[in-house]
């Protein structure tokens, strides 16, 4: 503000008055960050162990599987679609990679598993992208079908790796590099890659355009089907990566190990502020959303609450987070619907 402005009286009324629009905008855009910060401060005050390096790195390691899956699901959600099949796809991929490990060796097992998982991602992508079918129902059907495939493959038996100490496959789930857990590194490394992809490449721009307005995107020469297809392949890719971490960490797998993951992963993405309508969302915020889920679990356990208390808190946090987002856009806490 220059002196002249103050003298002319234009700036005077604004002095000292907080700009409510700007405040609202900040809350709207960074609400999730603020909530995250509050959480961390709260937990740190209530438990001295919470803020320790050991504890934080534990949380990162714990969320790495859900977090990795959430990266691909974020891309799908930004295109305006859902992927409910990632949970059973995780079961499928983990069973496959663990079972093949002892039969054909770790490297071929990983390769075959990636190929099979990506193939299933292609099916999702074909049906939703090129077939233009409702993504919720398609991936719901795929959830069931993949569950069946997993059981058929394993004959209903759980699988495990015989030589758990001697295989280099252990590095993905149990290894450390430069003091950081490998799962954490995979998660964060992929997060950076996905963030760059969404913000710096033409594909990323197309993802946002297709989610924001599929019709206008098509009218602008964007091949909608191809973009949606790729999003599902990416989602399958991150799930395959998560399966490597999970299989390596557990060195075995149950047939239903991923059951319910689809909705946990989606919770993380939604906490990160991605709209189910498509066109909005970001990788850093998804990472924060997933971390919030992880820190709730960790913080509550440290404070001595029962394990499942985290689910109750998650319930409240999901609704509050989305409510704040919706309310700030509406400019009122409650709807006027009668």
């Amino acid at each position, binding site marked *: 503000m220059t002196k002249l402005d103050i003298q002319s009286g234009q700036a005077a009324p604004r002095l000292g008055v907080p700009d409510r629009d700007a405040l609202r905008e900040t809350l709207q855009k960074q609400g999730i960050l603020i909530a995250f910060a509050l959480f961390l401060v709260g937990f740190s005050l209530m438990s001295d162990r919470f803020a320790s390096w050991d504890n934080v790195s534990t949380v990162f390691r714990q969320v790495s599987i859900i977090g990795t899956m959430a990266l691909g699901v974020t891309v799908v959600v930004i295109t305006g679609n859902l992927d409910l099949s990632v949970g059973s796809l995780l079961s499928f991929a983990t069973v496959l990679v663990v079972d093949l490990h002892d039969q054909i060796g770790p490297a071929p097992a990983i390769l075959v598993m990636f190929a099979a998982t990506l193939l299933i991602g292609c099916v999702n992508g074909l049906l939703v992208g090129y077939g233009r079918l409702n993504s919720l129902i398609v991936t719901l059907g795929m959830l069931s079908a993949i569950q069946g495939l997993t059981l058929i493959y394993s004959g209903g038996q759980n699988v495990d790796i015989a030589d758990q100490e001697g295989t280099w496959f252990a590095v993905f789930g149990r290894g450390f590099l430069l003091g950081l857990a490998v799962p954490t590194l995979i998660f964060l490394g992929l997060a950076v890659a996905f963030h760059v992809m969404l913000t710096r490449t033409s594909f990323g721009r197309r993802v946002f355009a297709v989610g924001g307005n599929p019709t206008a995107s098509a*009218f602008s*020469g964007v091949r909608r089907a191809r973009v949606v297809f790729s999003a599902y392949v990416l989602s399958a890719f991150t799930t395959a990566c998560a399966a490597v971490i999970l299989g390596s960490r557990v060195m075995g797998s149950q047939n239903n190990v991923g059951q319910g993951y689809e909705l946990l992963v989606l919770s993380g993405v939604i906490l990160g502020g991605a709209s189910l309508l498509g066109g909005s969302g970001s990788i850093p915020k998804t990472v924060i959303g997933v971390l919030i889920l992880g820190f709730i679990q960790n913080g509550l356990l440290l404070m001595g609450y029962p394990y499942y208390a985290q689910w109750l808190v998650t319930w409240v946090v999901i609704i509050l987070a989305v409510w704040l987002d919706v309310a700030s856009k509406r400019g009122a806490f409650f709807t006027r619907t009668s």
Partner: protein
Amino acid sequence: MSRVAHHTAEELADLKHRAPLLRLDGVTKTFPGVKALDDVSFDVRHGEVHALLGENGAGKSTLMKVLAGVHRANSGTIHLNGEPVEVNSPLEAKARGIVLVHQELSLAPELSVAENIFLGSLPTKRFGLVSWKRLNAAATHILDRLGVKFESYDRVGDLSIANQQMVEIARALVFTPKVVVFDEPTASLTDAEKVVLFDVIAGLKKEGTGIVYISHRMDEIFTLSDRITVLRDGQTRGTLNTRDTDEDGVTRLMIGRSLDKSARKAAPEPGPVALEVKGLSCGDLFRDISFSLRRGEVVGMYGLVGAGRTEIAETIFGLRAKDGGEIRIDGAPVDISGPPDAIRHGVALAPESRKEQGLVLGMNCRDNMSLSQLDAVSRGGWLDRGAEQAIYDEYAGRLSLKAPSWRTPVRNLSGGNQQKVVLGKWLGVKPRVLIVDEPTRGIDVGSKSEIHALIRRLAAEGIAVLVISSEMPEVLAVSDRILALYHGRLAREFAAADVTEDALVQAISGL
């Protein structure tokens, strides 16, 4: 169209002395950051058709929603029959006798016509059961009055858009309303249906109902209304007696000056043929369409809604599969199976519906502009932000786009500026052929002439431009040649120099 007789002089005099049925005083409505209505005052008398005129964004729809109880005014009063009233919800408005005939259809497709007409007030028997007998009888009574060709128990989703519009109108007549607000009611009606609607309005007038009639169509307003109130920038710019004014007078109020009718300065030298269409056909949408576009010329395509104009454009742009005919670009036959092909061949389409087809509303101006040319602004898939910015800067400048910054989401721009973003998006691909479909729909009059001038300038730069429009003044203002469509066929072709309005009207009416 002239079934509604004008009032005689005595009647008009009488009208002046009648007490206002509905009066608004100093109504103000603000939304965060926008003053949508600023001290608006006007009144409607018994048996009067009061036309409300103003460009999009002038505040008409906000005013309407305040009247209908959708929005609450921040200040100001509403008087009904001299009594101050509060209208806090659509329900309350209805209870007080103020009903709104929506422009966007507000029907439930799975329900029957009767259920839709009596939505929110279904007649009941015991236990909350619907009384179908009373429902259908009451609905049939209203439908008879409208002379429609469907039954009260037909599923609304099975009706044509025009018939759905009639259901919408029927709904307004349920409670012998005191005031009916019509928002662009004729947008999807055929001429015959318009006549019926105007009869209904005449009937309402006779019963003493006050009518607020919102429309863009000057001819309708001058046929129907007793008085005209013009809104601009959320303010009332004046109320005129329809008998004492003409289109120019109204237009002056709307834009503050007369509209420059011709954007065309001089007949240009037509260049070589850029686009040639031969015998193009697509199902029963259009048949055997042949025409050519030369570089540097503007060709207008004129016809009624449903004559196949937009569909022809969409087919050329690859959005529809043709089932016959040929498209040539610069003399060579091309196979266009989608917008990417069209863009590669230098064809661009600025579509009819900006918000649904033209723009990603939540995206910023720059990103919207580069969306049509992502390959050109990226290297190996990596976006080159410098190149994007250069495109934005160039076309924002050339089109004199008024946006706070390139970061502004296009949602926050006015209609005229949104259209400039759409045009900028297509100019960036350096098209040989530019098709603009309804380039000024919903754009204020001032920006209209700016867009017209722009279209002429683009032609002068060597682009072949096809302008599709349902507004005759627009077609006449910008075109060198005019193609008249009737029922999916090319009825006639005119040179701009020797076209008359009558001939054009005849051509698009199949006469």
